[in-house]
């Protein structure tokens, strides 16, 4: 079955060079499902989300492939139309809540802007909805928060606001780009639970970018493991934790720190596994370049 987000052979290069940062990535995401993108730093997991949303850094360009969102190939659309379609159907929960809200504007307009721009709502209607949304993400005293500036709120608070505003215009797809990485562990847990809760209430499909397999086991139904810009394994979460098929995925899983036993030291991914997966990516794909 092809999902409502379907990526076909997507390759992304460093502009003006043949160096590929994503290598023929294919991915299907059915409506309403949560899919994890896992890998080390530089594996290209964020790049996929950015390519979908059209916010790749300017030094990086799409070389080939298709990104079908709701049956339309984003890469074939003219920029203005693409922006409109993405704005209507997708949203982003960014990594760093400290820089993801405009510091010189109050919270309220930053949420209501979307409702006014995307859905064409009236300001008053949008404000009422924003209060509801803030209540949904368990923020007490929503009217006061809407009058605040971002720097007056804590990191966890800001991440809640970003979640509320991502869900605001009822998108069908949310790209969550390491939404818990910048938060401390106790807040991480609350935020994960909140994302899961919002997801099941709104039935939104989420592409969950993370390097933390623990997070994947909690919120995702399926996942893709990336290495060097290539998907080395795509599978259901349950099957993955029962027994990963690829040697690299297995090593990655083994390297997850076990908080239950503080005496065991961390297990790194063994060098021979890395050599093997590099060789594999290289063999399937020609030139190898260290992207890390």
């Amino acid at each position, binding site marked *: 079955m092809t999902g409502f987000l379907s990526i076909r052979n997507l390759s992304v290069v460093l502009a003006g060079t043949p160096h590929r940062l994503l290598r023929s990535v294919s991915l299907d995401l059915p409506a309403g499902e949560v899919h994890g993108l896992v890998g080390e730093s530089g594996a290209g997991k964020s790049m996929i989300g950015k390519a979908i*949303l*059209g*916010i790749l850094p*300017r030094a990086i360009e799409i070389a080939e492939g298709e990104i079908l969102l709701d049956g339309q190939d984003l890469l074939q659309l003219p920029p*203005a139309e693409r*922006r*409109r379609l*993405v*704005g*209507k159907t*997708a*949203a*982003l929960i*960014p*990594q*760093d809540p400290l*820089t*993801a*809200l*405009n*510091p*010189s*504007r109050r919270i309220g307009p*930053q949420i209501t*802007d*979307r409702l006014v*721009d*995307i859905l064409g709502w009236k300001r008053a209607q949008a404000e009422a909805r924003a209060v509801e949304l803030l209540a949904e993400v368990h923020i007490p005293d929503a009217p006061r928060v809407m009058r605040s*500036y971002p*720097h007056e709120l804590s990191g966890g608070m800001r991440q809640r606001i*970003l979640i509320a*505003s991502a869900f605001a*215009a009822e998108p069908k797809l949310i790209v969550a780009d390491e939404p818990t990485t910048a938060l401390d562990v106790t807040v991480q847990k609350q935020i994960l639970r909140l994302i899961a809760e919002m997801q099941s209430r709104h039935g939104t499909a989420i592409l969950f970018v993370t390097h933390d397999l623990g997070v994947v086991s909690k919120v995702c139904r399926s996942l893709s493991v990336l290495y060097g810009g290539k998907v080395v394994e795509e599978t259901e979460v349950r099957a993955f934790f029962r027994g990963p098929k690829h040697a690299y995925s297995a090593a990655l899983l083994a390297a997850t720190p076990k908080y239950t036993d503080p005496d065991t030291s961390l297990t790194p991914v063994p060098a021979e596994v890395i050599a093997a997966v590099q060789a594999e990516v290289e063999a399937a794909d020609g030139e190898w370049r260290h992207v890390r």
Partner: protein
Amino acid sequence: MLDGRSAIKRRAGLRLWLSGGWLLLIVLAAILAPWISPQDPLAQDLFAARTPPFWEAGSEPGFWLGADSLGRDVLTRILYGARIALIVAFVAGTLTCAVGAALGLIAGYFRGWADRIVSRLVDIWMAFPPVLFAILLIAVLGTGLTSIIIAIVVIDWTRFCRVVRAEAMNQGQMDYVASAQVAGMSRLRTMWAEILPNVLPTIVALLSLEMGIAVIVEAILSFVNLSISTDSPTWGGMIAEGRTSIHQAWWVLVFPLLTLFLTVLSFSQFGEGLKDRFDPVLR
């Protein structure tokens, strides 16, 4: 109650009041010059030549800060000089800011070829020695208020451009800009609605600084006799004239110099104070 933030605010408050107070005084002087001046700024009275200020022996009533070697009242000329100084400060400052900030914003946010063109232009521009450049320009354009303003804009837009470009580049990388793009905002509107408000505190501080610099440039040009015609008193012109009689009448040089110094200082402090006061991150 005494945390770091309120300490910053208090200091900024005092600075803002002192510099703002002086600037207000200068603005009032410029507006009210014809009514509050004790003398005619151009009236020469050779019997009053080099009259000392009021507290020194030999002073005369009506010449509070003394008179120059042609017997013109120093206080009156300072008050009238404020007019030219402020016109130059506001008009040249604002125009310089508009040109430099607009180019800097575009270069810093859009990057790519726009940035390459603007940045090279700035590099080339800054290789010219500014005062010589100004003198050359005035020599070509002819003296007069408009020429001075044009010269200041042409010399100084790079200052804004560089700072605003760096700041816009910085802001452009923040996640809130990416979020705005995802929500379907066009690049132009993102620049206007998301980036500009965050660069504004910097622009305001620079604008105020630039107004001070404009006053200095005008004074320099007056000093080398390339400013407005000698009929309208300017602080720079007074300093130039005072220089020749410094040993006989120090007041002709010192009072305009002091006024110039305090005004330029106030402009820069006022800008910094405003920035500290209204930057939401510091507030």
